[in-house]
């Protein structure tokens, strides 16, 4: 049909010929199966059948035939059963053949492990078909049309890459990592859409593109991007890049669970140091909590040694009602770089010599005043017990026994 044809009457419209070539995907068997199942689920039930008509009364002849047939069948079945049972009773068991033969198959070797092919999602450039110039005839109408289709697609892709804000930003970042990233971020009205695109692209991105997406996300720091940032944090390739943003946006509970995840010592120290740099006091309490657990204690001590946390917090923890908190605080005070910490510990030890925690801390200190007070305490029989107990506790905390590890 040509409702607006521009060709003369009697001649077909080229548009109709072109439109007749359009092809859409055919329904797949799985698609049809799903739809049929959906129809089975929702279709109306058929109405109940009307009362069935009674069966016709069988004639006398038919009744007799039926009866005799049934009787014959019963007799035959009885005879057959008798033969089978009698045969079974008379037959001698063949002992030799009764023994089951076990067939054992063992695999000579393991099947090779086949790694699935790594699919690199990327924007695939459509190949532009090239006319073979060995063909001696000019291209047909169809061949020219096909070439134009491929060129149109390639040109649309190029245009999209040049105009789409995210693609432009990624192209520039991948090409020049030192580019001023703030220039690549769109104006506030378009930022939400930009961030949505970044988050949608992240799962299928790899390599430099993924790094570029991570950089953009950490520059914009949208408040609801934490799940995406956490997934980037769990990837060792992008962890260090996004960690400062994660530490800024996540709550302490989330950060505690990150600390407990499988990390290298260096990663854990870096994360914990970033956490305790947060202004709230609870961040430093997290340092004490980390010192309480064997998994995170070495990192906590390293951070305390490096960052010198507030001593008033640690001295307050030294008086906590929870013994584990007191011991953790003592260990942290023991590695604190402030020399005045020794004076504070000596004062507490003199006032309450029976307490082990100040002695634990003093034993960790590496200065002459601490060594002197410990020597003095060892010469006192009453205080010596506390000092020895403190030493045992300190050794246990610094070198915890790990189950399953040979001594």
């Amino acid at each position, binding site marked *: 049909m040509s409702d607006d044809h521009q060709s003369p009457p009697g001649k077909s419209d080229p*548009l109709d010929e072109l439109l007749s070539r359009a092809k859409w995907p055919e329904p797949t068997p799985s698609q049809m199966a799903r739809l049929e199942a959906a129809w089975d689920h929702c279709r109306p039930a058929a109405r109940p059948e009307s009362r069935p008509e009674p069966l016709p009364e069988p004639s006398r002849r038919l009744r007799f035939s039926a009866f005799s047939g049934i009787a014959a069948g019963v007799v035959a079945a009885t005879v057959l059963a008798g033969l089978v049972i009698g045969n079974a009773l008379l037959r001698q068991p063949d002992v030799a053949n009764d023994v089951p033969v076990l067939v054992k198959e063992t695999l000579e070797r393991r099947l090779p492990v086949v790694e699935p092919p790594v699919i690199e999602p990327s924007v695939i450039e459509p190949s532009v078909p090239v006319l073979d110039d060995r063909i001696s005839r000019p291209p047909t109408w169809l061949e020219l049309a096909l070439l134009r289709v491929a060129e149109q697609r390639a040109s649309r892709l190029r245009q999209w890459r040049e105009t789409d804000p995210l693609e432009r930003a990624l192209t520039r970042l991948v090409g020049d990592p030192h580019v001023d990233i703030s220039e690549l971020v769109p104006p506030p009205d378009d930022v939400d859409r930009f961030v949505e695109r970044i988050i949608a692209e992240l799962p299928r991105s790899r390599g430099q593109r993924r790094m570029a997406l991570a950089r953009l996300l950490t520059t914009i720091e949208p408040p609801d991007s934490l799940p995406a940032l956490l997934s980037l944090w769990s990837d060792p390739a992008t962890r260090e890049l996004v960690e400062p943003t994660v530490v800024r946006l996540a709550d302490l509970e989330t950060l505690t669970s990150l600390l407990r995840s499988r990390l290298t010592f260096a990663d854990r120290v870096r994360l914990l140091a970033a956490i305790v740099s947060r202004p709230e006091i609870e961040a430093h309490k997290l340092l004490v909590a980390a010192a309480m657990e064997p998994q995170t204690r070495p990192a906590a001590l390293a951070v305390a040694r490096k960052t010198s946390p507030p001593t008033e917090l640690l001295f307050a923890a030294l008086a906590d009602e929870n013994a584990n908190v007191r011991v953790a605080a003592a260990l942290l005070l023991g590695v604190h770089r402030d020399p005045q910490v020794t004076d504070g510990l000596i004062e507490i030890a003199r006032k309450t010599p029976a307490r082990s925690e100040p002695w634990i801390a003093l034993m960790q200190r590496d200065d002459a005043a601490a060594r002197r007070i410990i020597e003095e305490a060892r010469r006192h029989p009453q205080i010596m017990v506390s000092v020895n107990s403190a030493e045992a506790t300190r050794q246990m905390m610094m070198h915890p026994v790990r189950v399953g590890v040979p001594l």
Partner: protein
Amino acid sequence: MSHEPIDARDLDRLVREHLPAAVRFATRLTGHTQAAEDIVQEALLRVARKYETFRGESSFRTWLFQIIVNVFRDQPHRPPEGALEPGVSDAVPDTTASALMAEELSRAIADQVSQLPPRQREVMVLTTYEELSITAVATLLETTEQNVHALLHVARRRLREELSELLLEKP
């Protein structure tokens, strides 16, 4: 022509018979197999709910397509209209170069049709691909024949412009 409400058993038979055609129609309307499946699924629900209103004034196919068009119009968030995803077929593919290029052309044209504005797309698909008459399309879309002619004219003009580079005179 029967004006009695359809029986549930007959309905079941008719739905199964027309289901592949319904999916094809929805695919042409949406340009997307997943969206087409969603639309047909919703249409089946509506068929089950109001089959008793079908009294045979039109063919069952027309009635079913009318429901599909209504579902298509009711979609609040249409999938992004872009290139069709490649079709999956059970047929053994012909991988010769010319066949692949022809396939590419066919998809490109289908792409253009499925990207027409919705009303133009409905009229284009129903007349050109479902081969319904103008009168039947007007009834299905609950509009006038003049309106169908006008939409078809505008749709064809638009396609002629979009496909102009492909419309070359044959040598």
